[in-house]
């Protein structure tokens, strides 16, 4: 075989390889659910959520500043809440002040739906309106909520609110209405788009970085690495609910 022939042979092989591999790549891209772009947290928009992921948050009490209310404000703006704090106003997230009576240390932390693995609100719901999505987000299906408020009673974190008055000008992504129960949705409409929660975003914007949002099931995620490395606690861990929201430094 002459040298020219050998070169041609090589080139043909290379061409063959490129063709085949590009076919392979195209196959990857058009296979169902295997789009190589437009993925929200690794999931296409038309794909159902799966229990491979479990969304959660880690809140660092040491970084959370006492006077700061940015997460609450961001939540209210994002979800179209009034921001009122009367017993009849909806509060999806609130700042709680803690005081150690012995040392006198005062600290504060944001408190919201803890997105339990075994949510008591889901257990007691007579219409199955209160439910846990496969990816661990606890939600209320307001289409079938009858407003009985058993879940409000059952929640150990007082995270649920009842809408007492007729509402207008709701956000398009966050439907809310009179006669139904509601609580933190972990900004499900943002998560489905591949974004983080409004409170976590506001916290990092304020420079505190106290709220870390991520996938608890992914060992490579920042939140998993952090809860693996440092001590974090669940509030009322004795109830065995395995909350998705964990706290550090309390």
């Amino acid at each position, binding site marked *: 075989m002459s040298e020219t022939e050998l070169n041609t042979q090589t080139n043909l092989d290379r061409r063959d390889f490129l063709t085949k591999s590009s076919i392979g790549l195209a196959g990857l891209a058009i296979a169902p659910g295997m789009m190589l772009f437009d993925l929200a947290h690794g*999931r296409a*928009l*038309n*794909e*159902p*959520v799966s229990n491979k992921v479990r969304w959660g948050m880690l809140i660092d009490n040491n970084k959370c500043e006492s006077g700061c209310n940015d997460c609450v404000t961001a939540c209210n703006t994002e979800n179209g809440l009034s921001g009122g704090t009367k017993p009849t106003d909806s509060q999806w997230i609130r700042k709680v002040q803690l005081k150690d009576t012995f040392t006198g240390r005062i600290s504060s932390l944001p408190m919201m739906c803890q997105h339990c693995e075994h949510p008591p609100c889901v257990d007691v719901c007579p219409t199955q309106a209160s*439910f846990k*999505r*496969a*990816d661990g987000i606890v*939600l209320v*299906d*307001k*289409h079938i909520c009858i407003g009985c408020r058993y879940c409000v009673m059952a929640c150990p974190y007082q995270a649920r609110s009842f809408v007492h008055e*007729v*509402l207008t*000008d*709701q*956000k*398009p992504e966050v*439907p*809310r*209405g*009179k006669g*139904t129960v509601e609580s933190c949705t972990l900004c*499900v409409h943002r998560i*489905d788009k591949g974004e983080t929660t409004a409170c976590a975003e506001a916290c990092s914007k304020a420079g505190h970085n106290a709220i870390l949002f991520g996938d608890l099931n992914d060992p490579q995620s920042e939140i998993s690495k952090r809860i693996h490395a440092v001590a974090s606690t669940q509030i009322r861990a004795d109830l065995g609910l395995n909350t998705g929201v964990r706290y550090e430094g309390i």
Partner: protein
Amino acid sequence: MNMAIRLAALLFSMFIATAIHAADKSPLPHLDIGKGGQCVEEDHALMRKIHMNLLKHQRDETMHKGIRGQKYSLADCVECHASQKTNSVLGSNEAFCQGCHAYAAVKLDCFECHANKRKVTAEASK
């Protein structure tokens, strides 16, 4: 007495006649279809009949399985059919949703929770 009965009968027949006349050319609702254009289904009569079923099926998929961006979405109804003037599908008997529901005397409770206004971008509202 006889006279009174006759008069009543006359009035009653006149009333019936007017009612029948009105029913003959019963006024159809004049709807402001907003942007309009290509609907998700070609068949408009079918949409009038089953839009609620399409929405109901997809709402469960979205709510419980997190499937978004599909064909039948209430937000997209509003996006196309909200009035160009008020950006809403409610507010008058010309408004796309309210107009027809008022005409058919069917309670419209979607918008007790859902937004009835088109999402106006910051640039468009300037």
